[in-house]
């Protein structure tokens, strides 16, 4: 969906590389059983909480992590939640997914990604920062709390885990030069690999049966205007993502190489004071979250 930069010829992508990326997505291991279990019930209006609680009891460590997060001041529940079943009932499936993803995904997100020059923890730091910033941004704009926004923030760049090795292998000096000249990194990915990290991440999450809202917002986080009914979520993630790069939250080779969507900025009526205020508030919340999610500062 990315368009080429005028004056910079984009060569046709090699279809075989795209096919290899798609195969890599297919070969990804399944998400944590607890996460898979929540995902299997999320679209079900009569979700069976007992089934979820049974899955949870096989991994007490992970379940304890979910409860710790649910009871932390950062996610703010009024009364203490002392069992997984109580968490299901009290939080609801969508909020529970936020907690479960935040507990089960960090191990995956801690991996370094050579192709993007991201070290150990960089993707996790960036993702958590974006998740928190998206929530703060929504609050500052008076947007009603959006379920699963935190999850979208946490997972928006998971596609880099897939495309990273391909970027390393197939990006030539000319590709790097292209983005140095102002061609966005996602457009260069598309031109070289035939698929960008946003699309790769969306396909992976779709394969894991994440809800359409999450899949679409991840797919469109660099072009929120294409997110259709999920434009608001994609826009919040888009702005939070750019702000995270500005602040240097878990940066990589591509940090400053994405276009800010003019449509998104105009529609959200953003101004510099608002985004700087968000950056200040995120800074505070991150201190507690780093500890909870096991991020080395």
């Amino acid at each position: 969906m990315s368009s080429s930069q005028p004056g910079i010829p984009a060569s046709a992508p090699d279809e075989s590389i795209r096919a290899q990326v798609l195969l890599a997505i297919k070969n990804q291991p399944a998400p944590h059983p607890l996460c898979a279990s929540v995902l299997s019930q999320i679209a079900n209006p009569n979700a069976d909480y007992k089934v979820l609680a049974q899955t949870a009891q096989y991994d007490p460590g992970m379940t304890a992590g979910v409860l710790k997060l649910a009871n932390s001041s950062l996610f703010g529940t009024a009364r203490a939640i002392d069992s997984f079943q109580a968490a299901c009932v009290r939080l609801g499936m969508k909020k529970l997914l936020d907690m479960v993803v935040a507990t089960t995904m960090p191990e995956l997100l801690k991996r370094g990604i050579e192709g993007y020059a991201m070290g150990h923890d960089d993707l996790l730091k960036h993702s958590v920062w974006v998740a928190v910033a998206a929530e703060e941004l929504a609050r500052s704009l008076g947007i009603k709390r959006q379920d699963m926004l935190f999850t979208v923030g946490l997972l928006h760049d998971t596609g880099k885990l897939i495309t990273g090795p391909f970027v390393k292998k197939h990006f030539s000096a000319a590709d790097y030069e292209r983005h140095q000249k102002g061609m966005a990194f996602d457009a260069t990915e598309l031109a070289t690999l035939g698929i960008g990290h946003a699309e790769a991440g969306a396909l992976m999450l779709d394969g894991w049966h994440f809800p359409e809202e999450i899949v679409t917002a991840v797919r469109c986080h660099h072009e929120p205007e294409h997110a259709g009914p999920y434009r608001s979520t994609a826009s919040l993630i888009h702005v939070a993502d750019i702000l995270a790069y500005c602040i240097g939250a878990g940066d990589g080779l591509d940090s400053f190489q994405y276009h800010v969507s003019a449509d998104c900025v105009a529609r959200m009526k953003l101004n510099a004071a608002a985004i700087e205020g968000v950056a200040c508030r995120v800074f505070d919340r991150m201190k507690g979250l780093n500890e909870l999610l096991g991020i080395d500062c």
Partner: protein
Amino acid sequence: MSSIIVDIASMAVSSNPDDTLITYSLGSCLGITVYDPVVRVGGMIHCMLPLSSSDPQKAQTKPCMFVDSGMVELLKKLFDMGVRKNSAIVMVAGGSQVLDKQGLFRIGERNYTVFRKILWKNGMMIKSEEVGGSVSRTMKLDIATGNVFLRSEGREWQL
């Protein structure tokens, strides 16, 4: 030799010649070093946003978050340690920009503008700088020599 890491919205000062002050992931943020070769005292700050007026309460508890309040803190501390304006060497790095035609995210540019104003008010000059562009940078200050090194995109060089 010990490395003192200067986190985002923090600063460090030292007169120990064995110390190296280092700050990572300078995007739009500014890394600023002030070093006096006469007394061999130096300091570094990593500021995130230009003006403390955007969150005065935060500026009380975390002055180094902002260029204006942070620079006041850094200079006050260094002057207390014997640094003099006339001999102080100031260097700055960071202030990168995203691909933003509307200018909303020109945080780096605003950081740099405020920094220049503060130096001007204090009658101080920048000796070297590596500001702008679209890269992330790491900055190091060697207290023994006052040399400042930058690292970005796999390269390291002296500022």
